[in-house]
């Protein structure tokens, strides 16, 4: 179940990384904000859950584009610079949310609970719903990428110069990429909100998981992300039964094993390296 | 039937049944030729014929799909680029790649890198031997600077130089690494006639030191003037191999170039 959520966030991350060569540190924060938006829309405004989800994905997509226009566009001079810039934004997002939504107590921050019922079915049904929506989104994404726009995105991912020579406007592709990438994170957050909660710290944890998914599944590949998130989801819950807190270590061991046998990740060809090659 | 090759018996480089494919794209197909020690070989062909790809395969940046490259009697396919460089094959790149933030002097000093005998630790500790070697290297760089005529510019940042001089720096670097086989990728493309003539002189001088040179070039006059032998590639295959005067009249070659122009 949670694998579906990982898949969404990781796919968004991979997309942005592949097309724009940007390592989006803030990917987790879009997830967190998406959850809060969903909570806000569904609980505070009382609108139906599905509407909340749609608003999550759209608002996060929009935010992603805004981040691009406001920050990334100006700091695009090198991989390191974009890393620092997205990291800075993620700090702003996280800290800003902490200040807006909850004070920080000594160890645990305040947690905002969003408990939403999905058409009379209690939480387990909710989990199925998540998988359903996740699959729906991934499949639509898959077909979307087959369209002309999708091929343009892939062209830009291959080579920005060649793509612009072919008449593709990179800026518009960037808007789209950021929009989709962050929107994916947003809807993931919206999906998880009723099942767990919306807390300000959830962004960091999911980001690490997304990275693990990407590392195990292969850095350029969507199918890899999908596969890896399922595997990770299973391993994580399984390991929790045995070692509790250290279940993350179990995943790292999994990562080490997979990397040993398949250095590029499960499906991977590692992406063209953005630094000085 | 070329007669040039019988003068030199020792092939320094042999390319045997060499093919290189990228996915479905065949960049090099069944190439077969030899280069003799001390020769000045020109590698020509229309754009996209695979000349730079061939350089990349020889220097280890690409692995051949089939076939092999033999250097001084030993196979080198599969070695890392730095290992191949250490064996004496040095190349320049098409889009002059230098350390733009370093001075000309430092760039050429980097080129000497291969020749440092002193181990890393001794260099770090600045032992007498390392210091002496450093001084020797710097002297050598100075010599090369004067040889190529870049002495005035030695403290300029490489990134600030005009293109033609950057090319000269690249050649100087290649020279500094004491190659036995030098691969020049388009050394005079984009240069005006004066710069071209100067560069050609340098190349002749380098050859005078006994270094074997393979040169990729589009500038036909330069190539015809300086090369003893030409190999012509088209669509990754060798279509001609011989003296410049023969190549000039070769039907296949003319067609290859003309055919491309019509595209």
């Amino acid at each position, binding site marked *: 179940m949670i694998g579906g959520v990982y898949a969404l966030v990781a796919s968004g991350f991979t997309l942005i990384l592949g097309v724009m060569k940007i*390592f989006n540190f803030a990917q987790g924060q879009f997830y967190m904000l998406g959850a809060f938006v969903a909570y806000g829309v569904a609980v505070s405004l009382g609108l139906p859950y599905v509407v909340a989800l749609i608003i999550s994905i759209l608002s996060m997509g929009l935010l992603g584009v805004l981040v691009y226009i406001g*920050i990334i566009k*100006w700091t695009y*001079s090198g*991989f*390191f*610079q974009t*890393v*620092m*810039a997205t*990291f*800075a*934004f993620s*700090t*702003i997002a996280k*800290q*800003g949310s902490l*200040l807006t939504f909850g004070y920080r107590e000594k160890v645990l921050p305040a947690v905002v609970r969003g408990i939403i019922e999905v058409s009379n079915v209690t939480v387990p049904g909710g989990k199925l719903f998540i998988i359903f929506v996740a699959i729906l989104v991934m499949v639509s994404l898959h077909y979307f990428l087959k369209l002309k726009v999708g091929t343009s995105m892939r062209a830009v991912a291959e080579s920005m110069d060649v793509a612009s020579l072919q008449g593709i406007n990179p800026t518009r592709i960037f808007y789209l990429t950021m929009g989709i990438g962050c929107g994916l994170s947003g809807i993931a957050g919206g999906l998880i909100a009723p099942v767990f909660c919306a807390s300000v710290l959830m962004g960091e944890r999911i980001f690490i998981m997304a*990275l693990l998914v*990407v*590392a195990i599944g292969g*850095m350029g590949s969507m199918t890899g992300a999908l596969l890896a998130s399922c595997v990770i989801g299973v391993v994580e819950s399984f390991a929790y039964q045995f070692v509790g*807190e*250290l279940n*993350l*270590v179990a995943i790292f061991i999994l990562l080490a094993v997979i990397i040993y046998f398949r250095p590029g990740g499960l499906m991977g060809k*590692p*992406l063209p*390296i*953005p*630094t*000085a*090659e | 039937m070329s007669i040039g090759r019988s003068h030199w018996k020792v092939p320094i480089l042999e390319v045997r049944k060499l093919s290189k494919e990228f996915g479905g794209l065949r960049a090099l197909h069944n190439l077969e030729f030899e280069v003799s020690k001390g020769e000045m070989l020109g590698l020509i062909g229309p754009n996209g014929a695979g000349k730079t790809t061939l350089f990349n395969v020889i*220097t280890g940046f690409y692995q051949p799909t089939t076939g092999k490259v033999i250097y001084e009697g030993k196979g080198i396919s599969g070695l*890392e*680029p*730095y290992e191949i*460089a*250490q064996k004496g094959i*040095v*190349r320049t*790149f098409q889009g002059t*790649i*230098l*350390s*733009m*933030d*370093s001075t000309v002097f*430092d760039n050429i*000093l*980097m*080129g000497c*890198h*291969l020749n*440092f005998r002193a181990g*890393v630790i001794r260099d*770090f500790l600045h032992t007498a031997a*390392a210091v002496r070697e450093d001084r020797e290297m710097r002297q050598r760089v100075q010599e090369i600077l004067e040889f190529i005529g870049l002495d005035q510019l030695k403290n300029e940042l490489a990134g600030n130089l005009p293109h033609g001089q950057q090319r000269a720096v690249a050649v100087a*670097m290649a020279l500094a*690494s004491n190659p036995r086989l030098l691969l020049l990728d388009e050394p005079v493309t984009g240069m005006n006639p004066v710069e071209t003539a100067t560069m050609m002189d340098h190349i002749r001088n380098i050859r005078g030191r006994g270094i074997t040179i393979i040169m990729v070039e589009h500038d036909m006059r330069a190539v015809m003037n300086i090369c003893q032998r030409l190999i012509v590639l088209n669509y990754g295959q060798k279509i001609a191999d011989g003296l410049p005067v023969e190549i000039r009249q070769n039907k296949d070659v003319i067609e290859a170039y003309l055919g491309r122009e019509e595209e």
Partner: protein
Amino acid sequence: MALGLVVLFLILLPWIVDKYSLQLIIYTMTYIMLALGFSLCWKGRLIRVDLAAYWAIGAYATGMLMTKAGWSYWPTILVGGLLAAIIAWGVGSLTIPRGGLVFFTFSMLVGLLIQQTLAASKSFGGWAGIESMPPPAIGSFVFKGKTEYYFLGLFLLGVNFVTYYLLYNSKIGRGWTAIGSGVGFAKSLGINVVRYRLSAVVLSSFFCAVSGSYLASYQMYIIPDSFGFHQSMMIQMFSLVGGLNNFLAGPVVGAAVMTFIPEYLKVTAEIEPILTAVVIILVIIFMPLGILGVVGKVWRSSLFVRNR
């Protein structure tokens, strides 16, 4: 001559500044060592996000060996450093050949792993860390005040600094510069890129651990929280603010500025990260080469004016 004056100044420093500033300086020196390590790897265009974890390794080595095994302080520095070097060597050997992006991603994951493991293990004190470490001692002379720590830090930083300086001006340093200008370029010059990068990673890990041992001995306690991902990013910030292209001076300037300036701007702990983040973004946009970059530009254009 100028060097002599600087050295003199540094020696007299504890008696010139007040105690609080001295403490800040001690922390700054720790940070400088870390930032130097980051810049070393950056010279070969490797970005690493795990330095705080190696910092932790040094700190924990000292902490554990002194509290649980009763060791004297001095050998623990070496043990921590070697441990860090070995781990860095192991991870680096696997990730460096696969390229900068893989190295970067794994540095982050491994850094997290190290921190989480140290924090979660009860035998290392769990999340509460290690407390009441004994101070270092030379024979019967026990470290009591800030001055002693200051000179220890100066010594360690000095060793670090000189080592890097010598390396930068040698064949290796030129090799790293070449790699930084282009991996293919360096390869064609005969440089074994993987080996050069690996040595940078291992060396910087070693000195970061040394810095960790130093910090632990000064604080006399260790909290795993202070060695997290956030700190690793902070280290990058020092180099960024100081000057990305200045591999020795940049870290010094950056660490000093980012440690001292917040002291004079009294902002709440909540706002501070946001402010820092905004500063980072502004620096990237307006001062891409850091403070020293700006200084360099001013210096060069003043030369130009003078030569007219």
